[in-house]
């Protein structure tokens, strides 16, 4: 039965990717929001590229980068013996790369909304940048950051194109729910496809409900 393994894998991948993206995207958003620096706009544009490129193109670039002959993949293989493609880590990487710009942009907007005097006040009270980030900026940006996280999770859950290229479609190992749906349709197994699609829908709806609740109570 393909449903349970795919569901488990999808949830694992989506949560892991969201965790990664929360840190990376939040940090990137913070840096972009802080102050102007030369090349800021270029950096922001480059980091947002996965938003506009077709997922399969992003997947292709990731494969080229992380594959055994890739700029990152080759040293990784020779130094640590690891290869990311075709493992569940590849699913996480693909999902995280696609979800990253969503979190980054939401975080940047949320941080930019904050009154700059709060940062100055906190600094004058002796706090360093990281302390200010976690004690003042993140609490004040809570709502925007939560929105970003939810968007990122949803994107990670539904990731297909880049995952297919980078992780392959290996049942039990890298076949996430969206890939399983694809294969079920491709092999004419309509009932399985329906069950899988419903699974995905239920999880997505649950995520949106949580998001609504979080967005409101804060």
């Amino acid at each position: 039965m393909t449903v349970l393994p795919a569901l488990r894998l999808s949830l694992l991948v989506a949560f892991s990717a969201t965790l990664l993206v929360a840190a990376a995207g939040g940090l990137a958003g913070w840096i972009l929001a802080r102050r102007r620096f030369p090349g800021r706009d270029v950096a922001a544009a480059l980091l947002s590229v996965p938003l506009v490129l077709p997922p399969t193109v992003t997947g292709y670039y990731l494969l080229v980068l992380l594959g055994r002959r890739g700029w990152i993949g080759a040293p990784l293989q020779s130094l640590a013996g690891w290869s990311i493609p075709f493992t569940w880590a590849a699913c996480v990487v693909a999902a995280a790369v696609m979800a990253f710009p969503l979190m980054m942009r939401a975080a940047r907007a949320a941080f930019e909304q904050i009154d700059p005097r709060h940062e100055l006040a906190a600094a004058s009270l002796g706090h360093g940048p990281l302390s200010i980030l976690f004690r003042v900026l993140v609490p004040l940006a809570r709502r925007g950051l939560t929105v970003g996280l939810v968007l990122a999770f949803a994107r990670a859950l539904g990731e297909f194109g880049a995952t297919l290229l980078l992780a392959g479609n290996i049942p039990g190992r890298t076949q996430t729910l969206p890939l399983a749906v694809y294969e079920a349709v491709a092999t004419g197994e309509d009932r399985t496809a329906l069950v899988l699609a419903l699974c995905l829908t239920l999880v997505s709806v649950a995520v949106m409900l949580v998001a609504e609740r979080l967005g409101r109570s804060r």
Partner: protein
Amino acid sequence: MSRLEAEIVVERRSERGGEFRLEAAIAGDGITVVCGPSGAGKSTLLLALVGGLRPRSGRIALDGRPLFDAGRGVDLPTRRRRIGMVFQEAALFPHLDALRNVGFGIRGRERPARARAWLARVGAADLAHRLPSELSGGERQRIALARALAAEPRALLLDEPFSALDSASRAALGDLLVELQSASGIPFLHVTHDLGEALRLGTRLVLLERGAVVQSGIPAEVIARPASLAAARAVGTENVLSGAVLRHSAELGCSEVDLGGTVVQTCTLDLPPGARVTLGLRAEEVLIALGPLGASSARNVLEGRVETLVEVGTGVEARVATPVPLRALLTPGSVRELGLEPGTTVRLVIKASAFRRLA
């Protein structure tokens, strides 16, 4: 005793452009008030001192320790400068209650206890668990003062902290401020555009106009004797006069004030005879007449001699010695028609209500 010194040149970011030059030494023996019209650069000054802006050149030192020195490449980040700041609308952290706000800059185990002590010090002990959104403007500023001082800074900057408050709160907080400063012994730099506050709170007054210090000194003196037109503009009132109350006259509805050689009648002042008072008189409210006047409603007709005539914008400012120098604003037409020149004897005609009490 602490000392804050600064000689800096800052690029001005506002539309007015140009540079901002400041040279000031602020001692910890009282509150130094920085006054000036908006756009004079008061906030720019504070930002540069606290480290939010980098001056193009110059030096800032606190107790002899350089905070910024362009020549030697020193530029301490804000968190290392030990300079506290209080903002116009408190800018308390909205997600923390009063106690946590005050404790934000305190390090160490006894943080809650020390924060509570500071809250009590500013008269806000019962507000400890309220959020800033649940506090009034005056209460918020008390918390803001406590927060800044609890971090034990070596100087405190205040950026128009009372301008959004009603006059009762302003008075109460002003007293608190004076008390806190003398207890702490650190320099307080208080920016305001309200001259009355300068007189009430300040031991020194620095006047800013268009990005430059135009005068500094004891508040009453600076205000009474602006050294230049720029200072006078900064001060906003052309005639600032110090004097003593002589007596009151209930039937006339007036008080008499001796300005040191010239006695004037003002509307009834709520002061005992002998009390010192500072009056403001705007030049445009002073009439000039030649020759004796018939009956008029003006309580003051003062004889004097024209000392100088200076063009100011589209008008002419005449300085007349009565013997106390008073300035009057005239149109060039009037000057011509009356044939006024330095040396001309004239009469100044001033209504009692034109004298406003400044302090």
